[in-house]
């Protein structure tokens, strides 16, 4: 029994969900639901406990990096892709988020999926996702990380297409998968480049190598190795984390069951990109260009998605776009070098966005599968728990003091404001915050207040069972207090979260930029401004949807083109279809299928076969059926061989060589 058992056997943490997945996947079909439930919940719960224990040991161990090599997965030449797990501060945050939120969502799913078919299948997939996500965050090298990366992609595909009988669902699954492939392609190129540069894929080795200033300009320069590698990695991140231009799959991914949206497409998987960028921040900080790109893309995505979110009427789609925009925030943070803030926002966002989705799920569950906000309203009296928890989350995401969202968003804006030339980024970020507050409250008002717009008789509204409300409450609490670890910073205190991550990201830059005191005043002002912006957004929403209902429609009519554009999400999907999909379909149909496959490959094979047949037909005539003719042929062959032996200078020696 080693001193720190779990740290010693880190693989236990990901293994448990895999076990649950295997059990459910292999035996679940024969089982009643409650066994599947037990397997899934217990496995994830256990892995959550193990994670907690691991964290305890991590602290007890003096917060030093744990790196374990368990076995060699691929060994080729000087390449070693090992099954290596590591644990440091960043991993701690991620693991806790994944296992904790994941476990809550598992519990929620028990209630939510209770009446669905393929119950065991759902949990098998969900546990599989947990396994791969944990592999992703625990991996100690890019190769293994990529395994988790692809694995979560797979599980997300499986879960989006969970209702595979619905064409839209399976299409959405395929879309997500394919779009992710584009990003992953870049990611793999990035990995190859890294390997070519550093001759390894282990994090520690690469970062140590990258940190040393020996690298010349060609490496750090505008189009140096690092820049290219970072951009390629970031391409993967945009795919996985739904950033411009690859964000299109995420809204469609809402076809999956709501818990899936909550777990995968809000809390954990989509943040993998952020995690990767943060994980390889040493590379990024060495490449100005990459940083700028990340910041701009993140910022643009945030604003862009927020604008689309303004007009969506499908409750889950609104949340999806808000997720995209929040992810944009995180990348903005990374781009401006405030990695700590990015991860911080990642965590808080995991709390409140998961909560939002679950609450939305609860709403949908309550009124019988309806997702259009225009057919809701006045629900708050009927489902108070859902309402209050969701309101909490909304406040949190809107960045109202003192909820979790406030602190994280505040840090991001601060980081954006402080870097040179970051003002425009800050402005857009602020505007986005305003928009966020607006559309989130629009969602609240449309859903819970006003007069019911749905058929009372058909849909008998009911509060969700406790198995669903429990996680809601837990997450609500988290999204209230989740940010307080950074709270003291406002009052000249210490930012515990930043300090905790400091060993990885280094301390926040603002301290160096200008004096601590001025930095503090600046921080306060910025926070104040942000809150004001949020308040404005809320106010507008109140004015448009409560005070004067119908004002929204007037507005929509008055500025028709903009409205329709937004409603159609800037026609991005259509654009992609025209620019990418159709040409590809044409190419593969006419060139690869008809020309290459049918004409080329099949043609060759068939030709060979027919050739053989015709030859056989020809030779067949030599079979006279007379035994002695065969004998004659044999003799002729023998004579030929003997002739060769005889006239071949060396052959005679070899043939009769046995005599010697």
């Amino acid at each position, binding site marked *: 029994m080693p001193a720190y058992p779990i740290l010693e056997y880190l693989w236990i943490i990901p293994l448990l969900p895999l076990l649950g997945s295997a059990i459910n996947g292999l035996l679940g079909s024969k089982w009643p639901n409650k066994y599947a439930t037990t397997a899934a919940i217990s496995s994830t719960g256990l892995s959550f406990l193990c994670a907690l224990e691991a964290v305890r040991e991590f602290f007890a161990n003096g917060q030093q990096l744990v790196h374990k090599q368990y076995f060699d997965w691929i060994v080729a030449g000087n390449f070693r892709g090992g099954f290596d797990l590591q644990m440091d501060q960043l991993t701690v945050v991620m693991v806790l988020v994944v296992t904790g939120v994941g476990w809550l969502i598992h519990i929620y799913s028990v209630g939510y999926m209770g009446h669905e078919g393929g119950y065991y299948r759902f949990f098998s997939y969900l546990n599989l996702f947990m396994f791969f996500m944990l592999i992703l965050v625990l991996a100690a090298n890019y190769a293994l990380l990529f395994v988790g990366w692809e694995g979560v992609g797979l599980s997300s595909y499986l879960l989006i297409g969970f209702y595979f009988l619905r064409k839209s669902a399976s299409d959405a699954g395929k879309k997500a998968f394919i779009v992710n492939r584009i990003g992953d392609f870049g990611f793999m190129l990035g990995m190859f480049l890294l390997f070519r540069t550093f001759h390894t894929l282990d994090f520690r080795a690469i970062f140590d190598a990258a940190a040393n200033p020996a690298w010349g300009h060609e490496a750090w320069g505008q189009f140096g190795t690092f820049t290219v590698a970072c951009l390629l990695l970031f391409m993967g991140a945009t795919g996985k984390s739904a950033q411009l231009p690859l964000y299109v799959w995420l809204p469609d991914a809402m076809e999956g069951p709501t818990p899936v949206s909550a777990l995968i497409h809000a809390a954990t998987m989509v943040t993998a990109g952020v995690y990767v960028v943060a994980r390889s921040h040493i590379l990024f900080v060495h490449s100005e260009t990459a940083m700028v790109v990340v910041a701009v893309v993140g910022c643009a995505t945030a604003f862009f998605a927020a604008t689309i979110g303004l007009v969506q009427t499908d409750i889950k789609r609104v949340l999806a776009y808000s997720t995209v925009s929040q992810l944009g925030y995180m990348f903005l943070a990374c781009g401006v070098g405030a990695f700590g803030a990015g991860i911080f926002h990642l965590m808080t966002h995991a709390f409140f966005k998961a909560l939002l989705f679950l609450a939305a799920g609860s709403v949908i569950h309550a009124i019988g599968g309806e997702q259009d906000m225009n057919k809701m309203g006045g629900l708050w009296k009927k489902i108070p728990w859902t309402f209050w928890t969701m309101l909490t989350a909304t406040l949190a995401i809107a960045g109202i003091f003192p909820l979790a969202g406030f602190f994280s968003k505040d840090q991001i804006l601060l980081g954006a404001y402080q870097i040179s030339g970051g003002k425009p980024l800050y402005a857009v970020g602020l505007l986005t915050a305003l928009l966020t507050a607006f559309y989130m409250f629009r969602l609240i008002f449309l859903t819970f207040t006003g007069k019911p717009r749905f058929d009372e008789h058909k849909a008998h509204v009911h509060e969700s069972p406790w198995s669903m409300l429990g996680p809601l409450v837990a997450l609500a609490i988290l999204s209230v207090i989740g940010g307080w670890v950074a709270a003291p910073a406002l009052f000249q205190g210490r930012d515990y979260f930043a300090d905790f991550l400091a060993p990885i990201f280094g301390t926040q830059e603002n301290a160096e930029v200008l004096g601590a005191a001025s930095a503090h005043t600046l921080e306060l002002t910025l926070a104040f401004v942000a809150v004001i912006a949020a308040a404005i957004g809320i106010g507008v929403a109140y004015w448009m949807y409560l005070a004067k209902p119908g004002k929204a429609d007037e507005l929509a009519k008055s500025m028709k083109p903009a409205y329709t554009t937004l409603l159609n999400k800037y026609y991005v999907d259509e654009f992609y279809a025209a620019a990418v999909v159709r040409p590809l379909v044409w190419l593969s149909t006419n060139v690869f299928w008809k020309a290459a496959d049918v004409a080329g490959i099949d043609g060759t094979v068939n030709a060979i076969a027919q050739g053989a047949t015709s030859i056989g037909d020809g030779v067949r005539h030599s079979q006279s059926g*007379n035994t*002695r003719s065969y004998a*004659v042929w044999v*003799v*002729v062959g*023998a*004579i030929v061989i*003997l*002739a060769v*032996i*005889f006239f071949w200078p060396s052959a*005679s*020696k070899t*043939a*009769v060589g046995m*005599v*010697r």
Partner: protein
Amino acid sequence: MTAQLVVFFALAALAVIGAVSLILQKHPIHSALSLIVVMVALAGLYLLMGAEFVAAVQIIVYGGAIMVLFVFVIMLLNAGVEEHTSISKMAGIPGLLLVVALAGFVAATIAKSGASVQAATQTGMLSSTKGISEMVFKDFVYPFELTSFLILVAILGATVLAQREKS
């Protein structure tokens, strides 16, 4: 002309005559008899070379078993004189040419391979049955076992072939 050489030529002539008569005889049983003559002559040659064991086995197995089977089958089927057909008349000449070519090439190859073979004369000292048995049961034990399997298969096959299908 040593005595051995005389014996050799006598036996060789006997063998060749037997082979020729195998070809020329009209009735299969006469062919069989001629073949037996050939085999006995060959056994004599083996003895001359000093390969006593092989000679004995040659007569016991070939003469005493295989050829008896042939004679038995000929008697059983009451095989008569074979009739001529157009093809068979034609077959003679080209067949002869082919055979001459074959034998010629063999002889030529041996002759060309030259001194080594001619020099290697028959010592006749190599007659150890023990040595053969050791080779069979040590060096060639796996082939030996395989041949036992072969024989088993042959027995089964012969049984299956010989039994009349029960109706």
